[in-house]
């Protein structure tokens, strides 16, 4: 049950190791790692960095609430959300969501749930460096639809 919002990178292997360490009731760990995708045209020589802004305080609060909602829906032994902010380059890790449970179904489903909800609920905004200068990324309606699909 951990939420971290930070500028520095994280070590996925070490984080997953830590998540299940000492708890031998855990039978499976699921994880999602989000990366900065290079949106600059191939061969253009350009590279698309981005800056992630967030709302300190509300971010941690919303992430903890989303995590608690996953706990209500699935029997989870451990969960972890790490989200970075600040300046990031293509290929950089942005977010890690990991869930651990006795069985794979709860781990896999809750991991997908967490990243879908995080994308529409957690107050982060991406400013991409485009060919015509910085541009705020627009929210996608497909993300809202994915979140709505989890409504029960």
């Amino acid at each position, binding site marked *: 049950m951990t939420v971290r919002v930070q500028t520095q990178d994280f070590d996925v292997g070490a984080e997953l190791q830590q998540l299940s360490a000492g708890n031998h009731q855990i039978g499976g760990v699921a994880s999602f790692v*989000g990366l900065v995708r290079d949106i600059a045209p191939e061969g253009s020589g350009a590279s698309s960095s981005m800056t*992630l*802004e*967030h*709302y300190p*305080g*509300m971010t941690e*609060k*919303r992430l903890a609430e989303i995590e608690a909602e996953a706990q209500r829906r699935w029997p989870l032994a451990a969960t972890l959300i790490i*989200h970075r902010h600040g300046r990031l380059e293509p290929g950089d890790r*942005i*977010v890690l969501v990991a869930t651990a449970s006795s069985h794979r179904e709860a781990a896999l489903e809750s991991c997908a749930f967490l*990243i879908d909800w*995080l*994308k*529409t*609920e*957690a*107050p*982060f*905004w*991406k*400013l991409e460096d485009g060919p015509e200068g910085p541009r*705020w*990324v*627009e*929210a996608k309606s497909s993300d809202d639809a994915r979140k709505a699909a989890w409504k029960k």
Partner: protein
Amino acid sequence: MKLLYFAWLRQKIGKAEETLDVPAHVKEVGQLLDWLESLGPNYATALKERKAVKVAVNQDYVGLTHPVKAGDEVALFPPVTGG
């Protein structure tokens, strides 16, 4: 009342936060947005597209009829794009 602005709302309004004495007739989020619009062209431009403005009061998402009062932390921002 403490106002916070994020992403392009921050850029259009020209500041990240401010503390404002809000008139007594402003009792709901919608009324607050209407009043903010009257403060200047930068506010009016930023708040023109109401559908693109999300509001949080004391760090919870709220709708336009949610009450606001002195001492609240009210944040205005565009739809979120993290993850």
